[in-house]
């Protein structure tokens, strides 16, 4: 094939001074070492200096502060209560009970007695003090976990459908997800040197990062594997999605979807969420090559001049899908086959017990907004520790921030069920169809990006919407609702049937019309409004839905058909 002609004025081929300052920062970081070690030792502040904040993201660490008391401390002439959040790299969300118990212990010792399950199937430890970071990282290493590339301009933790029922298929897809994750994890020695205190190794020939080079990716890159018909990972929100194709009960390969992504910026129409486009099919033994090819195209052609346009989705739209496909095939050395048929029915989790085809049992526990701690009503944190102490299978963190107690031998089910009951955990799976399909990001008080509440507010708002639904007899109707504290999209809001993104304390944008199975973007219907306006409009649409929906019609589909919101067919029209 011939070299593809394209505009190279904003990509890696340009000198650093023409690119965003972050590119220089990466180059000058000595493969992510920077001055992190020195910053950790600085005694007059609990923060780290300058660029190290950005570099530490590549190590899975975010510097944050307790925003509830930021202003109070400013008056007290104290610096903000700086803390770090560590995000674990956990491909497919699968972990063992001993890993759970270690996370539990680290959370009790250093992370404010709480764990946070995330929308990308992993754990976040919040409230970590700078002086305890090494202890936490070494504690994770003790159970073969790390936080490499859980943030930063690199391939983030790789997702995989939890699929409790199809045991063999899950095992096969999970193994591929894990291989893709291992393959795409940065290889720099910075991590063991800084966190484990290892000596810097003398290196032989060749670059320290064969795939990433010195400038890594233009921005984050998200990979996920999904097993239809459940689109739990929201494959269309991934930069690179693999949709499992099963024929005659056997996994034959994957449809490849490229260019999905959620993040956008308010008042910046050049930014928008985009659903990944399916460009063809590859055999299952071509997965790693495909990752290399797609990531390589984004690494080499992604926009490195403007970070707000650096995600793969903009590269896809700027270059055109045909060009992108050709560039990928050029690197693969073969043409993709035509995409094969597949269908999604939902992006939610089925709660409660399910039996796998191998006879083992799986219990999916709803964890509201992924927050694991001891609540007044139920000691979730203690209860899950008790389960982990007894459990002999695995756990799976779901993409909806829930938790599967997986691979329970049939004989062990009564014991696990008794534990769940004794700690009151089984009661958590109740609630309305809306609540069971609700999801919020962390936001205040820890996230530095949040402009409004999310995790602490969505349950309150859901109560009020539930009252409206109940009045119309719709309490059990499954409806997806997602909230984020800023427009960046951690809870994948732009594909929910109802979504809210924070603008200011108590103020949100309201979106309607997303697809129930994550197959369609929603659209903004109210901008920067408070709760009364949100409830008033939802009340109107819900009343109409109750009276005029077609049988089986989902709320998001109805909202479009009834004219409450226009359909968004492509990301670039999201802001029209």
């Amino acid at each position, binding site marked *: 094939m011939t070299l593809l002609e394209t505009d190279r004025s904003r990509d890696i081929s340009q000198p650093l001074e023409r690119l965003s300052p972050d590119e220089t920062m990466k180059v000058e970081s000595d493969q992510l070492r920077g001055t992190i070690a020195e910053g950790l030792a600085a005694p*007059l502040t609990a923060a780290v200096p300058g660029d190290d904040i950005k570099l530490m993201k590549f190590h899975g660490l975010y510097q944050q502060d307790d925003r509830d*008391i930021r202003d109070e401390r400013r008056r007290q*002439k104290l610096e903000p209560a700086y803390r770090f959040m560590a995000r674990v790299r956990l491909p497919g969300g699968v972990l063992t009970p001993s890993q759970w118990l270690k996370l539990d212990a680290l959370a009790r010792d250093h992370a404010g007695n709480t764990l946070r399950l995330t929308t990308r199937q992993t754990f976040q430890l919040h409230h970590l003090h700078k002086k305890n970071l090494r202890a936490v990282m070494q504690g994770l290493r003790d159970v073969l976990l790390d936080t490499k590339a859980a943030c930063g301009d690199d391939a983030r933790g790789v997702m995989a459908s939890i699929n409790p029922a199809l045991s063999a298929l899950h095992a096969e897809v999970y193994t591929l997800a894990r291989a893709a994750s291992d393959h795409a994890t940065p290889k720099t020695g910075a991590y063991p040197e800084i966190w484990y205190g290892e000596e810097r190794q003398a290196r032989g020939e060749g670059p320290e990062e064969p795939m990433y080079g010195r400038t890594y990716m233009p921005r984050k890159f998200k990979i996920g594997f999904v097993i239809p018909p459940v689109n739990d990972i929201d494959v269309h929100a991934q930069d690179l999605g693999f949709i499992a194709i099963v024929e005659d009960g056997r996994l034959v390969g994957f449809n490849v979807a490229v260019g999905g992504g959620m993040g956008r910026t*308010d*008042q910046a129409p050049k930014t928008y969420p985009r659903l990944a486009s399916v460009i063809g099919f590859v055999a299952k033994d071509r997965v790693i090559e495909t990752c290399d090819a797609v990531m390589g195209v984004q690494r080499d052609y992604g926009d490195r001049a403007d970070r707000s346009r650096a995600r793969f989705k903009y590269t896809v739209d700027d270059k055109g899908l045909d060009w992108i496909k050709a560039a990928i095939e050029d690197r693969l050395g073969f043409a993709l086959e035509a995409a094969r048929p597949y269908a999604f029915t939902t992006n939610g989790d089925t709660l409660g017990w399910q039996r796998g085809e191998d006879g083992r049992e799986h219990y999916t526990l709803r964890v509201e907004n992924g927050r694991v701690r001891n609540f007044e009503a139920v000691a979730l944190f203690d209860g899950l520790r008790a389960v982990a102490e007894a459990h002999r299978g695995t756990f799976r963190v779901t993409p909806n921030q829930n938790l599967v107690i997986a691979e329970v031998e049939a004989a062990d089910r009564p014991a696990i069920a008794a534990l769940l009951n004794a700690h009151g955990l089984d009661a958590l799976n109740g609630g309305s169809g809306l609540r069971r399909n609700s999801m919020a990001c962390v936001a205040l008080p820890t996230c530095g990006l949040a402009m409004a509440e999310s995790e602490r507010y969505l349950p309150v708002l859901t109560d009020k919407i539930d009252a409206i639904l109940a009045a119309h007899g719709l309490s059990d109707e499954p409806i997806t609702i997602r909230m984020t504290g800023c427009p960046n999209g951690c809870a994948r809001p732009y594909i929910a049937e109802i979504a809210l993104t924070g*603008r200011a304390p108590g103020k949100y944008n309201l979106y309607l019309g997303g697809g129930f199975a994550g197959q369609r973007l929603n659209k903004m219907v109210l901008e920067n409004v408070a709760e009364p306006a949100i409830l008033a409009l939802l009340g109107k649409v819900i009343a109409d839905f109750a009276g005029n929906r077609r049988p089986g019609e989902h709320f998001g589909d109805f909202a479009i058909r009834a004219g409450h919101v226009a359909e968004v067919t492509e990301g670039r029209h999201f802001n029209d």
Partner: protein
Amino acid sequence: MTLLEFNGPGLSEEQWKAVRGVATALKPQQALWLSGYFAGLADAARPEAAHAVPAGLPPAAGLSARTLTILYASETGNGAGLARRLADRARAAGLDPLLADMADYKPRRLKEEQDLLIVASTHGEGAPPTSAAGFFEFVEGRKAPRLEGLRYAVLALGDSTYEFFCGAGRRIDDRLAALGAERLRDRVECDVDYDEPAAGWIDAALAALGPVAGAAAAPVPAVPAAPVATVHDRTNPFPAIVIENLPLTGRGSSKETRHVELSLEGSGLTFAPGDALGVMPRNDPALVEALLSALGLSGGETLELKGAETTLGRAFGEGLEITAATPRFLERWAELSGAAALKDLAGDARSAFLRENHVIDIVRRYPARGVDAAALAAGLRPLQPRLYSIASSVTAIPDEVHLTVSTVRYDLNGEERFGVASGQFSRHAGPETVLPVHVQENPRFRLPADDAPIIMIGAGTGVAPYRAFLQEREARGTAGRSWLFFGERNFDSDFLYQTEWQGFLKDGVLSRMNVAFSRDGADRTYVQHRLMEEARDVYAWLEEGAHLYVCGDGAKLAPDVHRTLLAIVEAQGRCGKAAAADYLGALQESRRYQIDVY
């Protein structure tokens, strides 16, 4: 003015015109500062005395008659970018603007400003960016000075989808006008596409500043006749108003240490770094009530105190010590109550009894009804002022005095008890509270010459005078190096004035800082441990003429630090114990080792 008719040694007519143009526009403080500036220039230029005007001075024609400062409040960087653009344009027009982020700007300087251009972004619902919160708090607060003589204009940035569009810009614009400043140009409010309106405002604002060289010279304000000053001292304290009183210790602290600011405006009081402030407290009204009730007295009983007639209630409130009891009170109460047990108390038993029983406890345990007010008062000591090391520099912050107060609080006989003054600060000294104060000089704790290095060692509230030291050195623009050792219990909650030290370090006012937090780790680390770790450098600083200061607890800190210094000198100076003691003795004699303990 005759002063301005003299055209100087060898100045050309043109140079003299320029100098005179500048001089006539100056405020007295600016003139004073400039005299030092020129003296410094002359010093620097001395080897090349041939130059009549030192190189590096801007050409005379480029000198503006008024100073221009550009301040910005920026959340996302847009405001900062516009401010930079504005500064570039101003420079191109021959002005010499000072460009500063409100976060880094000392708002007390506002009253020195002449022309001020502000670019203010709005964050959330009409609020300024977090980084500018302190600036807004000052300007909108009661401490804001009158700003007559200031000319200003505001460019407001915002997002019209928010309810309080450009709220921060509106607030600052209205507030500056309310403070008496002259608005040069109407505020311009920009939405998210701000380029065009912002460019228009920049042009208009710069034009409104007027021509650069020919700026009309403001007349030198007449020096007001100094009022006949009332002298305030210990016997005639100044009634100072509390203007700020908040805990420095953060949530979860095992103690409470407060920052208190008092207004000295109109007092004529002045002080040097190292001095203390005497504060006359009031007794807790609840304690006064409890004591009167235990005595069965109304408080309306009259008596004579310090030659003036007063009531018992007043005397308990602000004239007498009514917390800890003295042997004299014990004797007096034994007589008044007839309690035999009190009469027999003596020696250690009496000391122990007095430790465990305050006046109120004694009156309750050995009750006597209807005692004579005057007879009772005669057994009580007059209330004494409490002394606090001053934590501010009057050079840096005129008309105010700051204190760092540790709240004394403990349980006794089943009740929570407070120190008299610290308890008042902790519970009964909101804004507008008036406290009689006087300055207590402390000539044994003084900054050395401006260029001498200083090592400051302090624990807890012992750090207070060092805040005054550094404020003073910053205000004077001194060159001397400085090194602070600070100790407290917990990093997160007890790092007193943390952000101020960070700022002093960033600005180079403070050269080094070491901290010890005794309750953060398993092994208790104190300032003397940090000193020991830095033994080589500490000794080197002393050899280079550093002055050494120790402030804090007299029972523990000072002896521990002294022992450590002996060990450092012995090891680093390779001398014996006796020689090390002589070394420190000599430092003390030459006033290079000063101690202020309590």
